[in-house]
């Protein structure tokens, strides 16, 4: 569809223009396919994900922006709303609360916000959700921190 392509081009230009606008997000488009994007986001500070860099994969549908992009974590992350194996994200704005006014950039921001504020009542990662729901904040944090260190941080020599 032409509209989605045009819009993605505009978003691409916007991203190129404001590369330094948001230091926590690095959006990049696949060289050969404008419907495939990847993003690198930094784990928000004062969370167990701090210091980690997480990779996201965007699959933009033809009906974009009327339909939300499909986003998943390529980097392993221990988070109640992210499927541990597939990286699928349970986020309302990526499902029924999507609005065409959102952009890929703003989706990244929403995912960073989700990392800082997990929603244990609709878990995709049951272990993580159960830890939080049972009040074991410390257990959750240490698990999340461990996986961040394992998967989202550069290996130290």
């Amino acid at each position, binding site marked *: 569809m032409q*509209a989605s392509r*045009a*819009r993605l081009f*505009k*978003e691409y230009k*916007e991203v190129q223009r404001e590369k330094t606008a948001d230091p926590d997000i690095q959006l990049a488009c696949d060289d050969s396919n404008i419907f495939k994007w990847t993003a690198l986001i930094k784990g928000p500070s004062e969370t167990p994900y701090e210091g980690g860099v997480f990779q996201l994969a965007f699959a933009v549908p033809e*009906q974009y*922006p*009327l339909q939300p992009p499909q986003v998943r974590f390529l980097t392993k992350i221990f988070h109640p709303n992210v499927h541990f194996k597939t990286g699928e994200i349970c986020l309302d704005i990526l499902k029924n*609360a999507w*609005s*065409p*006014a959102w952009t890929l950039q703003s989706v990244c921001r929403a995912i960073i916000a989700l990392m800082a504020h997990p929603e244990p009542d609709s878990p995709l990662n049951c272990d993580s959700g159960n830890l939080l729901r049972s009040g074991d904040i410390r257990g959750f944090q240490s698990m999340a921190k461990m996986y961040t260190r394992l998967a989202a941080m550069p290996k130290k020599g």
Partner: protein
Amino acid sequence: MVSNSITTASMSSGPNARDLGKKKRANRSAKLKQCKLDARREQWLSQGTAKNKGCKEEQNDGVQSRKGVNSSLKNLETSSRGEEMEGSMLIHQYSDLDSPANSPTSVTSSVLGGSTDSGTNFTGTSSGSSRSSSSSSGGYCSGNITEDEEGGEEGGGDDGCLDDWEAVADALVAENKNPCSESSPECESVAELVSSREANDGVGLGGVDLKSECPKMVLRGACGNSQAWRPDDAFRPRSLPNLSKQQSLPNPDRHYSGGAGGVTWGCNKVVSMPTSCPICYEDLDFTDSSFLPCLCGFRLCLFCHKRILEEDGRCPGCRKPYETDTVEAETSVHGGSLTFRLARSCSMIARS
């Protein structure tokens, strides 16, 4: 000039070639301009000789030595004078039809003229200057009077118009047999102001209007009007349409300050308004920017609105389903947030 530059081009080495190319281009354009000016002057001369009698001839002779740069202005004035009422009426109509911005100027001039205490001034000046001002302002703003005149005016925006105008002013004073002896020196000073301003702006917008204003200022003692016009001149190049719209208000001095505030406020609003559709990132045209489909104030272009209606029918801003009769709600509830509409309604209120 051209041959010079060519020889230097052949003499010069590589790095200078670009500059010379530029020079050449400049020369060519200058030549073209000169050609156009010559053609225009001839055309005007033939017109002028057909229409003008008496004192006009002297002016023409005087102007010829000035390389025809001022020819367009002259042309306007002479033609408007020569054609008497018909010409001016036509021009007025043109400006009325062309752009809403122009009509108020002509309206104001007539309104102001009508309210002047000394009617003779106005009739005297109006025969020449105010009429020419209306026509020339039409040329500047809408560019819908013939191309010749407009193009000529661009050329005439140079220093030449100062001298030309002085000559015209002198002629006017002579014609009017005005007792006011100091009018011409003051006019000159104003004209100098004008020329300097024109040099700054590059466009002679303020200049033309000031010229038309000058006799009025001088003859009326000029306090209220001149003060009201000065800030206006500073703003003029940027927001001419709005200002002239404000000038169409009945009593200019009172409404002017309020009008100016309104204008700046309106400008701010325009800046803050989205210029492109947040959905498809295409630029919003006038229809789109006056289209407010949802009470939440989220704007989008009509295409995206239609697509969303076909899809799930919810506003992207508030995720509430679009109402069917939003267009009525738009004008009544959110009229204040629509800048263009607001400006129009203001002027309409003022007129009624």
